[in-house]
């Protein structure tokens, strides 16, 4: 039988923060990662758990001030169903649709994906490419952490032990193009071998690319930005020469590893190939 650690279910955020001020507690939202840990097969089970499921202030999706705000407890299924997401940031629904299958999408939350900090977390490269800001809070108040400062080491976040992920703010940018690709063993229920998210700004198809952001998952100990490749793409046009050069640059930039899901060589080649294809499609050649 799995371990059944003690759990508290606060009714609102102030109560949750009071509990976190007393002792460290491992949060549970949709449980798709933590409930595996209590079986003891992956890592050690938590000593004490904080059940976030009643914190309704952390649910929902809103659009205001040119930003999409997604509450930490919003599930992938809710993101897929959201009319706001479909109209303002359809790539987020596209990414949510690649997570697990329907059972996982009904339970797993965006905040959980962020806090669990898996290097293979499906949505994390997209949040990096979109320059999302992660709002966190605890007994000492709230603060905002840019996505590229959030995952600081292997499965380690910038969260203090008494802090929770509250919501994610994603700036919406006119003329921004975004592409997302996940490669796994099969389409559903696969942990990624490579996740790639690419964003750039472009007034029209002939225009040079600006503000290029390229983020990758499953190729390092955490989700990363590929900054050399971003620089290479900055100011370029979507030509064959650009695609070849960007593919070569990203293959040289990343240091993936061999593990149970894939090999370093496969990951490097696939990352380069996906990027090449996205640039080709963007160039329409």
């Amino acid at each position: 039988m799995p371990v059944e650690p003690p759990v508290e279910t606060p009714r609102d955020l102030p109560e949750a923060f009071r509990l976190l001020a007393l002792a460290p507690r491992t949060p549970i939202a949709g449980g798709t990662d933590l409930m595996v840990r209590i079986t003891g097969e992956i890592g050690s089970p938590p000593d004490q758990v904080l059940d976030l499921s009643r914190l309704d202030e952390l649910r929902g999706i809103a659009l205001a001030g040119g930003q999409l705000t997604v509450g930490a407890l919003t599930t992938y299924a809710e993101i897929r169903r959201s009319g706001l997401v479909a109209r303002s940031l359809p790539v987020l629904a596209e990414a949510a649709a690649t997570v697990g299958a329907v059972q996982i999408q009904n339970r797993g939350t965006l905040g959980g994906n962020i806090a669990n900090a898996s290097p293979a977390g499906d949505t994390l490269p997209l949040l990096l490419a979109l320059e999302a800001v992660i709002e966190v809070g605890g007994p000492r108040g709230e603060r905002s952490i840019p996505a590229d400062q959030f995952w600081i080491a292997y499965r380690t976040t910038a969260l203090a032990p008494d802090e929770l992920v509250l919501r994610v703010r994603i700036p919406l940018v006119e003329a921004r193009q975004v592409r997302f690709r996940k490669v796994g063993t099969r389409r559903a229920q696969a942990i990624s071998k490579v996740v790639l998210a690419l964003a750039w700004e472009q007034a029209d198809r002939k225009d040079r690319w600006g503000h290029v952001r390229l983020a990758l998952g499953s190729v390092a100990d955490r989700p990363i930005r590929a900054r050399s490749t971003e620089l290479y793409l900055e100011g370029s046009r979507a030509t064959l020469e650009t695609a070849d050069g960007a593919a070569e640059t990203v293959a040289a930039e990343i240091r993936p590893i061999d593990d149970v899901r894939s090999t370093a060589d496969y990951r490097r080649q696939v990352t380069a190939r996906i990027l090449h294809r996205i640039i080709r499609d963007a160039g329409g050649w």
Partner: protein
Amino acid sequence: MTAIRFLVNGAPVELEAPGMRRLLDVLREDLGLTGTKEGCGEGECGACSVILDGEVVVSCLVPACQVDGRIIRTVEGLAARTPDGRILDDLQAAFLATGGAQCGMCTPGMLLSARVYLDAGGGPDEDAIREAIAGNLCRCTGYTKIIEAIALAAETGRRPAGA
């Protein structure tokens, strides 16, 4: 221990259980509802799927503290109870008709994923059925007969009453 109240297959249930007990264990061990199967125990295989407030979830990943006040449907709740006994759900009848079950381990989860799919208006389209059961692994059938069964139930359900 926490007092937890919820509805299972229409019947109210109240029990004392550790809040982090898996819903799967509450159903099988505490309530004796062994129709729900444990496959992998880590949310990969879908054998323990149940319907929670109308959505299909894997019960190995749901802690008991999160089902308080909610509505659960398991495979035992699919067949309708009548004074003359039980009448199989369209899906159960279709699985029998097409040979959609072999060892039976995945069947309860398949039935419940398919039930939610059909209740949401899903039709006999193969790609849509494959997506609906993508979280349910079957090691026997190769899926073909399961997909046939769900498509058949979709057709049966659409037929006007008495047809």
